[in-house]
């Protein structure tokens, strides 16, 4: 598993836990969990939709001489 998907997995777990929390709790804490859950789920789901990188030198910035 490459690093992008590993991060995605962690964030997906956090996002799902927060979603679970939103269902369980009531009041202010729901808003807080919602704010955390949405971006985590966005990245977590997205990281499994994106294709594997086809670059030769992954991670190298396309800059002069580097």
């Amino acid at each position, binding site marked *: 598993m490459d690093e992008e998907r590993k991060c995605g997995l962690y964030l997906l777990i956090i996002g799902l836990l927060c979603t679970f929390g*939103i269902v369980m709790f009531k009041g202010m804490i729901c808003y807080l969990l919602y*704010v955390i859950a949405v*971006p985590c789920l*966005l990245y977590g789901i997205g990281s499994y939709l*994106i294709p594997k*990188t086809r*670059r030769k030198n992954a991670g190298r910035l396309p800059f002069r001489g580097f």
Partner: protein
Amino acid sequence: MDSSIINVVNLTIHAFLVGSLLLGLHRKIIARIQGRPGPPIIQYLLHTIKFYVKEITFPITAGNPLYIFVALLDVSVWLTALIIAIDLKSSLLIIIGIYVLQKIVEHGCGLSSGSPYGKIGGVRSVFSAAAEVPLFAVVAAIYLTTHSVLISDILNYQSIHGSLLFKMPICAFAFFILLVSKAPNSPFGIVKGKDIVSGYMTEHYGLLASIIYIAEAIAYFALLWIFIAVFIGPWVVSHPLITLAVMVGLTVILAFVNGLTPLLAPHHSVMLQMTIAGLVLCDVLYRLIMGG
């Protein structure tokens, strides 16, 4: 589960769609001003969806997990703004805090990638923060007039005394400058100027760029809503269709302003914003001395 959360989910999707379409409209109008046909209005939405399924790799120069975290923070920040402003109608001061966090996101995005262009974008975002944050002296003037900074209280005040736009034109102008700064292609947009490729977003591509696009659509909607609610009045925000119409009108104005002005040099931009902030401060002092 709280039923209010369902409202918030509705609101988020609404904000994202409306914000994306307005940004598309903004781009279209600028293209027409420049004599081009321009992309379709849904282009911004298409961009967001297209980038969402594009590959990413972490640059080896990047500082992880800050590199991902700032992009996600951008979404969190503007979701918080939506909840605080539109759903809870709470303190305007928290909105300032959120706007300040937006600056942190720009700075962090730029610096965490290690790219020289991103670094310049990040440093410029620090510059512009120094000038844009004083613009929030507006809040002090509002407090002196309405004796509260809670958005619900401000709406109540306006329903009794009429809209604040005519009572404090200087403050409305200063807040409008904030809107101009946040809109794309703006004269104050030194952070994302084309002279530094894409500024802070240079190294955030693919999925991360898509997430930032989502956040910006929500941000555009939230800022327009706050401007309308604080300065125009409760009768506009009470009905979604009227709100939408006023937002379209504001977008047209913003597009004309941004389409007809060149990008300022960083120090000119900062100086101009500081001058306007100075005007607001004079206004605040005047209100203080005259006893609000």
